[in-house]
Structure formats: structure tokens, C-alpha cells
């Protein structure tokens, strides 16, 4: 990690993202924003508020509702010199731009023998918490980690959000940058202009000796809260924040797992085929015979998400569920 965190200043996750966009746009003329309502509206979740006023219509582009075009045009611009940051309002709508992201952006560099780069970022918001229903709440990061050529990022703190977004914008590959809708108001230490977090490196957010929780995005905070509660009972939990989901930093995971010998993989996406399976399978394989308990996954069940805040809440692992799962791991 390069750069400095501010000890005095605190910002929200939303503001940290805006700082990253602002600073990168200041530093590099080729960085542009495009998407639905990113300009005059300031973004559906207000991340880009003020940037149109600051950078003008040439660099902050309100597009028609055309998700495939947004990603596809961002790619075309990226191939000829731009560094576009496209916003897709909800992960669920990325379903409309899958060709552009998966068949095109992810493959341009390889299939054209290295002649073109695709330095674009697709920012997207996902997750539950608003009772937004089956078409506005899905967590689909697992799909994209299965696509060679894409990089996938899912930060949990304002400082990581800023540092990773800056790294993503500077990176020469297509990056899917995933923001959890519950994180926007969350406050944390602010990062200064030189703070850039390299892609592909996980972060141990809390050290511990008894159990490793591997997680990302909003669930890092749930894991940290559970760890805090468990520490009162003398249980020492290490929390690994993956931050980057492709490529996966399994070295950090295996180091932690090797020392605690007990692993819980925690995520909001539904269980079957989720990215937790990849991590669990790799840990199980690499540390065969060295673990004190089976690798457990704690995830949403395989259910369509109801548009009902209360029902939704029961489906997503919360602090209590994590505490129970850790205890269970310890007792086996």
C-alpha cells in the first residue's frame, strides 16, 4: 500500500469514492465518467455529486438508459485513449451489459494479441438492506471472478474504497468495482491524495489466532463486530478482507488459515456457486490435513430475495449468525 491515511479526518465511503474520482479526474484528462444520472442527478447513490459542476459536460456524461451501450462505448473509448469510469446503477442491471463486459472488455487484450488495452472501470452498486427486491439486491460478484481478463474489486472501508478506485482507474485492464449499498454512509479514516491500494492484495483487518474469517465488502464489518463480541469471551478472530476478488490473493488467506487452522468464509451472495466455494475449496485442498475443522461457509441461502426489508434481513448472515458459526467451528 502506498500513501497516507489521515488520522484527523473522517469521511464516508461515498465521499471517499467521490474524492478518488475527483482526484483522478484532476490528475488525468483522459478520465471521464459516464452512466445514467451520474451528472445532473449526481448518481443514484450520490457518489458523483458535484463532479459535473466541477468538470463539465465533456467529462461527466449523462447517458440514455442503455446499459450495454454504456459499457460498450466505455470500452471503445478506452481502446483509443480514454480512461472511462462507467456507472451501472445496480449490479442486477449488469445482466444487460454482460456481452460488453465479458465477451468484449475482458477479452480485448488477449484475443487481439495484446494490440489493445481496455483501461475502463465499471462501478456498480449491489446488495441487500433496502428491501429492494429480487431485481435490485443481488450479489453477483462470483460470476465475474469466473471471467479471465476481468479484475474485480469490492472494498469495505472508505480508505480502501478510495485507494482501490484510484488503482482501478490507473490500471490498464477492465475492472468491475463493486460498492455495497449499505456502505455508502459508513464513516472511516480518510485517505490522502497519494493513497493508492494495489489491486490483488487482501488485507488482514483484524489479527487473531483462533479462527480466520474470510470475507469482503459489507460483511467485513459484520465479521469485525462478531470478532469484537467473541473477544469478550476470549476467542481471537482474524478477519481477512479480500478487497480484490479477481485475482484472488490466496496467499494471504492460506497464511492466515494455516496459523488459525479454522476458517469461516462469509458472504452475502447466495451459497451455491458463490465465490466462497472457490476460497473454501482452495483452502481445503491446500491445507488438507492441517485444519482443525472443516472450512465452513456462511452465506445467504439459495433464495430469490423478497422485496421486504424484514424478510430480507432474516436471509443475510448477521453478527449473531457469525458468532454462532465461529463457536460452532471452535467446538468441532
Amino acid at each position, binding site marked *: 500500500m502506498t500513501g497516507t491515511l489521515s488520522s484527523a479526518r473522517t469521511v464516508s465511503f461515498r465521499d471517499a469514492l467521490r474524492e478518488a474520482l475527483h482526484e483522478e479526474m484532476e490528475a488525468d484528462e483522459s478520465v471521464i465518467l459516464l452512466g*445514467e*444520472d451520474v451528472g445532473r442527478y449526481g448518481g443514484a447513490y450520490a457518489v458523483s455529486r458535484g463532479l459535473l459542476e466541477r468538470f463539465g459536460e465533456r467529462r461527466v456524461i449523462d447517458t*440514455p438508459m442503455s446499459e450495454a*451501450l454504456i459499457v460498450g462505448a466505455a470500452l471503445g473509448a478506452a481502446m483509443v485513449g480514454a480512461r472511462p469510469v462507467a456507472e451501472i446503477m445496480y449490479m442486477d442491471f449488469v445482466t444487460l451489459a454482460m456481452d460488453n463486459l465479458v465477451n468484449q472488455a475482458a477479452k480485448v487484450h488477449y484475443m487481439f494479441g495484446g494490440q489493445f488495452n481496455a483501461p475502463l472501470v465499471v462501478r456498480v452498486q449491489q446488495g441487500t438492506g433496502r*428491501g429492494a427486491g429480487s431485481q435490485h439486491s443481488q450479489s453477483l460478484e462470483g460470476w465475474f471472478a469466473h471471467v479471465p481478463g476481468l479484475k474485480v474489486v469490492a472494498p469495505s472501508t472508505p480508505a480502501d474504497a478510495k485507494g482501490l478506485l484510484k488503482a482501478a482507474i490507473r490500471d490498464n485492464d477492465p475492472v468491475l468495482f463493486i460498492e455495497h449499498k449499505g456502505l455508502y454512509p459508513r464513516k472511516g479514516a480518510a485517505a490522502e491524495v497519494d493513497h493508492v491500494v494495489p489491486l490483488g492484495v487482501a488485507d488482514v483487518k483484524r489479527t487473531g489466532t483462533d479462527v480466520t474469517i474470510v470475507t469482503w465488502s459489507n460483511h467485513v464489518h459484520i465479521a469485525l463486530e462478531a470478532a469484537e463480541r467473541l473477544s469478550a469471551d476470549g476467542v481471537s478472530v482474524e478477519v481477512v478482507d479480500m478487497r480484490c476478488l479477481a485475482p484472488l490473493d490466496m496467499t494471504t488467506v492460506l497464511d492466515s488459515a494455516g496459523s488459525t487452522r479454522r476458517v469461516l468464509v462469509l458472504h452475502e451472495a447466495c451459497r451455491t456457486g458463490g465465490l466462497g466455494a472457490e476460497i473454501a475449496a482452495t483452502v481445503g485442498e491446500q491445507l488438507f490435513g492441517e485444519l482443525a475443522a472443516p472450512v465452513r461457509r456462511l452465506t445467504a441461502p439459495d433464495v430469490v430475495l423478497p422485496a421486504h426489508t424484514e*424478510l430480507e434481513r432474516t436471509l443475510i448472515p448477521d453478527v449473531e449468525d457469525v458468532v454462532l458459526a465461529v463457536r460452532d467451528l471452535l467446538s468441532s
Partner: protein
Amino acid sequence: MSVFDQDTRIVDVSTLVRLYRGMVRIRRAEERILELLLQNRLSSTMCHVSIGQEAVAVGVCDVLRPEDYVTSTHRGHGHFLARGGAMSALMAELMGRETGACRGRGSSMHLVDASIGHLGSNAIVGGHIPIATGAALWSSLTGQSRVAVSFFGDGATTEGIFHEAVNFAAVRGLPVVFVIENNHYAMSLPWERATAQPSVARKAEGYGIIGVDVDGQDVLAVREAADQAVSRARRGEGPTLLGVETYRFLGHSRGDPSTYRDREEEQRWHARDPLLLEKIRLSAAGVAGDVTESLEREIEAEIVAAMEFAEAGPIASVDEVFSDIYATPLGGDQ
């Protein structure tokens, strides 16, 4: 007695009253829904009202037959009610009850009623257009004369699926009417920045079908244009693009102050409130104030009863949250 309207449309007074009633019913329901939203009594945070646009839903649904199909949008309370959806099912759904239209799982953006051919509202803008088209395809393949109507906003017309569905319906002459509820904004994007061809009639030419641009604040004008489009579809003469020009009086959703709109523009549209225009027409036709007052009272009673029904219903159950993921559960492990 019938009224000879200024635009030479002949309708009888009972139709005028029915249309007015339909619009008031939607307006009052949504006013109540907004209250519930502010009181945090809805089970979801997602809610979009159609206040100002009532003439579209009411004018179009008035000419449909019971066997016809409808698909709708994130802004779909009006379509649901106008199509004949129960006020009680709507309120119970919004309040997350087992007795709601979708057992409390769909909320505002996913209203549905199979018994009246309402194939569902949809939270993906444009996502339901091919569903209406597919229903029309089946109607046509099986020689039925059922018509499918898809309501959607101006924003949906720039989604690729709009194009694919309209093109397919056109080339096969399917019995579907595409109703573009053009309230001139897709969230903050004004229509003139969404397209270089503002006329829906001209867009229709690009598909080789008939298109019509209609005043969406005048419920009779909407009804007339819809009647022609639906009749054409029913006679097997293919689809129509109906561009209905209207305006949402409020923000896109709660917390949108519509700073991207001009106050003067808003005023101009408010002056053309569809309820107001229809009320003037009612007076002109000699309908007495007590008629409109009594329908207001009936509607108020309907809403109160619906809310009581909703509150009496059980909250959608956690025990049931896993049922219906599949229609046919299997022997597998999930």
C-alpha cells in the same frame, strides 16, 4: 345522454364519470401510499408514484377486455388499479403482508394479478416488454384474439430490449400495444437528451408499424387512441406504438427534489392535471358536484377498507420464505 366532445369524440356521461373515477382512485391511493412511505410503514424502500399520469393507465385499460394481458413498470400502481387489481391486494403487498398481491415478496415494483391478465410489473426498465410480446405471440399462434398491452416509460425506449421486442412484434404482426408513457424524464434525463427523434409516431415508421403521439393528460384522447390500437391488434393488424405525453408531478422517487426540472415547466404541466381536465369536462356535461363528491367518498372508503385488510393480514412469513423458489421442487439437495 351523450356528450359531443370538443374533439368530436362521442362518449356517454357514464364513461366520463367512470374514467374520472378511475383516475381519482389512483390519485387517492397513491396519496395514501406516500403517507405510508413517510411513516415508514411500507415493507420496502422502493416506491414510485404516478401522480399526474393517471390518464394513461385509465384511458388504456378502459378499452381492454377481461382476457387481455398487461405488463407494467416500477411506476405501476396505476396500471394495477386501472386494470382491475384489488386495492386491498395493493395495500397488503406494499405493507408486506401474506395477503398481498405477491404474498408480500414483490412490493411496489412487482405487482401482479394472474386472474385479470396482469402479468406483473417489473423493476428492470424494459424487462417486461418481451414478456407482453411473448404473451401476444402465444395469443396469435393459438388463434386467440387476446391483446397484450405493455406500459413503459420514455426511458425504456432507449434500452435494446425495446427495439428487439417492437421489431419482432412488427415483423410477425403480433397483437400487442406498446404504450410509451412519456413523462419526459427518465430519472433526471430529459427526453430531448434521450433521443434525437422525439416523435413516437416517427419511431414507429422505423419499424414499419403505426405509431401515434397522444396527449396523455386528456383521458379521452388516450382512450380513443388506445381503442384504435387495441382494435387493430384484435383484428390481427399488428402492433402499435402509442406515445402518450404526460408528466410526473413529483420526484422520481422519495428524496428526489427534481432539481433537474424547471419550476415553470412543472407549473405548465400542473395546469394540465388530468383530473382537473376531466372534472371540467364533467361539469360541462352537467354532472353535478354531488356525483364527484360521492365517488370521492366511495374511494376513500375503499382505501380505508383496504388498509384495514392489509393491517389485519399476517406479515409475510419467514417460515414461508423458501417456498416457491421452484414451481416443481426436486429431489436434489436444495
